[in-house]
């Protein structure tokens, strides 16, 4: 590990910015290009970079596979949950208008939450894919 100082220092500097950028993409998706999906992938990419540089074991200690797997399922539940909330408030499924007093705010909240669901599932899924492939050992012969 010691012979990759540049890589480690470089990653250390880059990763916070990648994660920050992901958050920007998530919350700026209403005004510019971006949204939950892109943010999720970038978030995952930042984390995968961490795993590549510092080793899979360290990465799994920081973010256990079980947590990643819960994320992947949780996002779907959040998305569908927004739908159930709108049903409960008397609207059609995913009709965000009923979420607030005026439709425009309702749409804003609805989009915020479903994009959050997308972010969580996509982040969880991409890292889960990475763990699954990287954690598989080569066949010993």
């Amino acid at each position: 590990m010691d012979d990759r100082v540049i890589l480690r220092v470089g990653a250390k500097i880059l990763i916070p910015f990648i994660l920050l950028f992901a958050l920007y993409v998530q919350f700026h998706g209403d005004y510019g290009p971006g949204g939950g999906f892109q943010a999720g992938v970038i978030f995952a990419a930042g984390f995968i970079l961490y795993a590549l540089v510092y080793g899979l074991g360290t990465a799994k200690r920081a973010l256990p596979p079980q947590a990643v797997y819960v994320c992947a399922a949780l996002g779907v539940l959040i998305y569908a949950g927004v739908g159930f909330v709108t049903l409960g408030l008397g609207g059609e499924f995913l009709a965000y208008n009923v979420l607030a007093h005026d439709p425009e705010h309702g749409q804003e909240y609805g989009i915020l939450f479903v994009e959050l669901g997308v972010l969580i599932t996509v982040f969880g899924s991409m890292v889960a894919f990475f763990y699954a492939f990287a954690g598989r050992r080569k066949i010993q012969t």
Partner: protein
Amino acid sequence: MSHHLPVLLVVIPLVAAPLAALVNRPRVSWAIALGSAWWALYAAHALLRQVMADGPIHYALGDWAAPYGIEYVIDPTNAWVLLIVALMGAVVTPYALLSIERELSKDRIPLFYAAFILCLTGLLGIAITGDVFNVFVFLEISSLSAYALIALGPDRRALTAAYQYLIMGSVGATFIVIGIGLLYVMTGTLNMADLAEILPQLEANRTIPVAFTFLTVGITLKLALFPLHLWLPNAYTYAPSAVTAFIASTATKVAVYLLLRFFFTVFGAEFSFDVMQLDKVLMPLALVAILSMSLVAIYQDNVKRLLAYSSVAQIGYMVLGISFASVLGLTAGILHLFNHALMKGALFMAMGCVMYRVGSVRIESMNGLGRAMPWTMAAFVAGGLSLIGVPLTVGFISKWYLIQAALEQGLWPVAAVVLVGSLLAVVYIWKVVEVAYFRDVDPDAGITEAPLSLLIPTWALVVANFWFGIDASATVGVAQRAAELLLRVGS
């Protein structure tokens, strides 16, 4: 509540899947799967009743009116398909409990049920939607989970079967996407009803026929119509028993439904059959499928593979019904969707019982099983009779309508092929019966009857085979209504 029934039908299983994955207790996951499957059956049945009584149901998701938003549209045809899918889900899930515990390691069971419910969700979602791109999304949900489910089979060839299915399925899905894109570029809409309205107004052009071709080929790949059936025999043979029973009785049915929907609702019968001359392609393919695949089935040593080839032949019957483009023909095809699900479900589930006790479904391992597992083999024989088309079974009803439809158009050679297909079915079913009832059982093997939780679902389907074979008025009524609406006659 009942107003939201269409969306709840799909969304409750969709939410159940992540829950089943999260609880991580095999039996609890199974219970969640069972609950969502039975809910789907209840909802699908309620929808069918509502549609038959009050006409089509529309549900605007997100409250955005079509064509700006995505819309669920339910008419007799897809209510019928929804019921088939939900029914098979509801019957196979209780069956899966022990069958899967035998065939899969324990730590995978929660994920197995998650994938199983996702597959159910996807199939329901395809059948219920009125938006062509939404079809693609749900098609992928069902396909991805089906690939994973098939790969779980105990034999290593399950992996290659799943891979082959994944490649052919993805080609099919991509073709469908191309077709949708071409339709969209010419019309500017993705809503099926809207497309149906705009397409006839377009002047003759070369893009729409190409879109039609790509959609047909793409769906046909998913449908496993001869000669694009290559993925099916391996997939059905090597998948876990419960998965084979479920997928064999639902996935291809939903693909047939998509064909019906695109041919008759979106493009219209006139375009599909008069302009594109679809019957001249479909009918020969269906006839070749019936004859050649029944012949191939006779030469199989593995009973699941035998039944898989028989399924390809049976898909031929359904497509044959469509290719007549008449009310009788469509009625026969739509009826056979349901009837074939009942018979193949029963047959594959009987084989699952054999797998449970014997650990193999090769013909030579079934010596004397008629005595060792009387109920299982009786179910197999009953399903076989239905497959052949003996009177008092549902198979007879399907073939009766099919032959009538052929004779109505004076196509007596076609009717003859249907009969020959039945005779071939006698031969391959007899192969199994002979071994099971006329060979001596190996007394040391100590094989006993399958447990009740496997037998009861199997026999439920067997009873349905006779029930709807003796009194077909309900099923024929729905199928005929669906056919009339698709052809836009009498309404």
